[in-house]
């Protein structure tokens, strides 16, 4: 789809031009930043089973960080100067929490929340950074607060690495409630663009809207009536439903005012192939940002602990299953041919994942935003995995790649290491050292500052923002 800024137009129909009655706001607006003149956006880009740190981490820091085998697609991309590589940043505090779950679930549950897998699934502290950002800009215009996509289907029963599957497979949480994940580009498109009534006359649309808002108000009232009669846990559940009703009301209100800065893209085709689905979803993310249909998205390129078969990428290789080859074992890096073959496959798969990240970043940089910069410039992309090293399930030196400066709020074009020298081989032997290490929670505090959201702590690990990455 081509984007022509001169042809921006309202896509909404009659229903869109009706002004809604003022609904109780989601949260006190004063606690949040004022709406920026140009949209600010967040994209989390996640993939499963970690990477191979020795061939991921650039050995030196600074703007001229040398390329590595796995980061090569990023290093060689035109967006290199808009990328930030961080080393010496951990889930380490979480790694010390005793857990009945395995390493993947242990890293997936806190991925965007920094709340350990061991906390109750409905613990109201379980809120993810994307959802905090989305709610801070809830009244700024985009009708869809946020959207989570996953190329692989999410699991809805059984045990996922010893934990409840929601903790393993849901990235976005708000106060203990898992937010939906859409596993086809079609379903995601429906969330972004469906639900308008192109054929309806204005008067019909007004009536229908009156009916909908009245019903929702009624439902909110009924939930409110229940609350005082319930115990704490049940009240939390009712509160979560109430919040959801209010947020949906807010969405309707936003829809009535929203203007998309593009025409609605065509509904994507239905595909099952991993690569085609990946391409459709990444295109959908770009267009959703371009259209200002939403400003916050999360994307799972591959699932927590993903065991997809990469036969197509590794012709002739004996070992092609993603999780299987991630367990190449450091201890057996001696000349064992099985370990060597698995490691070779794992490195190539890891490099392919970075080529997809580079493609995503490139897409966001290919579109001009309303202020003349690119979409990427006004966005921050956060990319990592639920573990650092596939083989050791380590929660330190996570493979953090960021891109976009969030409208100049964040540093780019660097490799910054919080440990000196760069801990290239930190996963091969022993455990991490260094008091200067930082946490993902600290990183999220910095990102939140970039959105104008000031909070003192983040999850169980964030205590102070990282000055080195803030302009």
């Amino acid at each position: 789809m081509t984007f022509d800024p001169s042809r921006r137009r309202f896509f909404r129909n009659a229903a869109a031009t009706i002004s809604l009655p003022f609904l109780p706001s989601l949260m006190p607006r004063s606690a949040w930043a004022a709406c920026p003149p140009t949209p600010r956006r967040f994209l989390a880009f996640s993939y499963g089973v970690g990477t191979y740190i020795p061939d991921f981490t650039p050995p030196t820091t600074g703007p001229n960080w040398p390329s590595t085998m796995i980061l090569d697609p990023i290093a060689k991309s035109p967006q290199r100067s808009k990328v930030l590589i961080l080393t010496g940043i951990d889930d380490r505090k979480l790694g010390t929490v005793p857990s009945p779950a395995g390493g993947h679930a242990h890293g997936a549950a806190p991925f965007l929340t920094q709340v350990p897998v061991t906390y109750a699934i409905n613990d109201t502290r379980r809120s993810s950074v994307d959802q905090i950002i989305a709610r801070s800009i809830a009244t700024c215009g985009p009708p869809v607060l946020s959207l989570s996509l996953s190329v692989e289907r999410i699991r809805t029963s059984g045990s996922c690495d010893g934990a409840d599957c929601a903790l393993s497979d849901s990235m976005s949480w708000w106060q203990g409630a898992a937010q939906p994940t859409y596993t086809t580009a079609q379903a995601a498109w429906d969330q972004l663009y469906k639900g308008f009534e192109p054929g309806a006359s204005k008067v019909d649309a007004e009536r229908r809207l009156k009916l909908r808002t009245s019903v929702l108000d009624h439902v909110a009232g009924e939930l409110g009536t229940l609350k005082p009669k319930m115990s704490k846990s049940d009240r939390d559940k009712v509160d979560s439903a109430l919040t959801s009703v209010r947020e949906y009301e807010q969405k309707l209100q936003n829809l009535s005012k929203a203007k998309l800065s593009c025409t609605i893209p065509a509904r994507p085709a239905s595909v099952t192939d991993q690569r085609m689905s990946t391409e459709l979803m990444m295109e959908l993310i770009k267009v959703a940002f371009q259209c200002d249909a939403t400003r916050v998205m999360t994307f799972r390129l591959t699932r927590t602990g993903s065991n997809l078969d990469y036969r197509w990428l590794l012709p002739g290789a004996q070992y092609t299953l993603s999780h299987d080859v991630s367990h190449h074992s450091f201890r057996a890096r001696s000349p064992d041919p099985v370990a060597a073959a698995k490691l070779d496959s794992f490195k190539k798969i890891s490099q392919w994942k970075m080529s997809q990240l580079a493609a995503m970043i490139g897409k966001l940089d290919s579109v001009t935003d309303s202020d003349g910069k690119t979409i990427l410039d006004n966005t921050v992309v956060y990319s990592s995995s639920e573990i650092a090293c596939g083989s050791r399930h380590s929660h330190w030196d996570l493979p953090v790649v960021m891109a976009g400066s969030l409208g100049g709020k964040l540093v780019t074009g660097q490799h910054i290491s919080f440990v000196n020298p760069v801990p290239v081989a930190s996963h091969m032997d022993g455990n991490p050292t260094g008091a200067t290490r930082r946490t993902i929670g600290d990183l999220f505090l910095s990102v939140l500052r970039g959105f104008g959201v000031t909070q003192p702590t983040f999850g169980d690990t964030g205590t102070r923002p990282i000055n080195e990455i803030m302009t």
Partner: protein
Amino acid sequence: MFDGRGMSRFSSWSCVLLLASCAGGIGAEQDPGGMGGTGVPGMGGTGGTKVMPVAVPGRLTLRRLNKDEYNNTVRDLLKTAKQPANAFPEDQAGDGFDTVGEALSFSADLVAALEVAASDLVDELVARPPTDPVRMGFLPCDAVSARNDACARQIITGFAQRAFRRPVQPDEATRLFALWNKVAAAPEVVTAPQPQSFGLKAALMGVLMAPPFLFHLEMDPNPNTAALHPLTAFEFASRLSYFLNATMPDPALYAEAESGALLRDPMVLKKRVDALLGNLKTLSGNFATQWLNFDDIDELNGILDPRVFPMFATAANRNAITAGMKSETLSFFSSLVTEAKPVETFLTADYTFLNGRLATLYGMSAPANPNAMTRTPTTGTPRVGFLTQGSFLFGTSDPSRGNTVRRGAFVLSRMMCTPPPPPPADVPPLEAAKVPKNATARQRLAVHENTAPDCRACHLITDMDAYGLSFENFDGVGAYRTMENGSPIDTAVTLADGKTMLNGPRDLTTYLAQDGRFAPCVTRNLLTYGLGWKFSADEGPAYATWLASLARDRGNSMRSILDVIIESEAFRTRRGEAP
């Protein structure tokens, strides 16, 4: 699933830590005598002379209808063929089941989908012809062509009572009536040809989005105290109906709740349970599929290596065979609920259900009608009980071969409720030099345990390897074989006790049937599914063991376990929560 698929890679440096948890975990869950008794007598007819060893532990968190329950409920309420919940966001599971309140989440997207569903369902109801019985049942009078308050109240009360699965409270009805009038009198609406029709739609949508419809709403008279209190008859009827049929109470059950007979008269309850179990589609389709990890079958189906398993080369064949495997196990599960056999027959049965495709895969003669799942004896064949069915043998496999360790882990976790801890990280692959060319699984495991001797903790002390090796005569898709990589297969194992020697599935399942862990495990899974009870947080396992011991005295069948659960204090009470 990946957690199991990593199972074969154990490292020595972390296995040391696992030794204690492997040994301790089993002892703790196996031994009901270890639980301190409170001496509280059982309620509801399960008592006899036995004394409950633990009080009902934990409490249930408010849970919403899941997608299946929503679809079934609107089907029975409105006789609709729509399945609106298919368009809802995915449900979340807790402890492996999609009925656990802690996990089932709300979101703005769900509210949006619920609103669309409610709107569509009401439109469909109103569009039914005037003589349609469903329409006449819910819209018995005309409140639309002109304002008619008495009729509006009648419609609201009747619809809400049915949808809420209990009598509607006067204040609830009043607020719904106010919603009707507010919408009908709104300036935007009052100019419409039939403003009252907007009021009607709003009120009916209000019912379909109200908490008593969307939630399994059970009220605590004293929400801030943890004392147990009995459910109301309507709450009990709903629990019963959603447990056994995943839907709202039917009119007969509702009437028995209304009259009080359901709680008062054990014979009424028994007959009602008989009737509800006349339809086993939801109990097998919802409970058994989750208990037995059917998700893994679909997962593997997508990545199976067609070079190794040519029968599965085309998607059409793959889907047909795996559908047959599921159907086999679900028919088998249902037969055990219906027939008064010991629950351990699930492991030891000498029959299964086959269609032509499965018979071919299993090397057995096809039934007369190859398209129908047909009950078939397995006496004299290598097959015995669930653990030689394709759904287990296939569902635990790697893309190119069966996974011995994962089979053992499945038996431990799903059949015995004593799961091994998740595998540690950085386990070296088997060193190629030490593995004989074309080694069998047994030889590979032996190399593994010799190279990493301290890994024996979980592999050997839990008998995980021994259980897994018992099934080596079945390949990755469940076909029978006697050779692996050119060597004859040896399934003889000695368990960790050093005494028990087993050879193959018949020995193993006979052993497991006597081991004492299976019936409590089935009970525990049924309690989690049926009540939405997240066991991990409390002392549920001991309670499940206690219920299983009661069921043993009553025939020890799957049905007696269901009966004991339904009669249990846990099923008939709830509690608030001390702040």
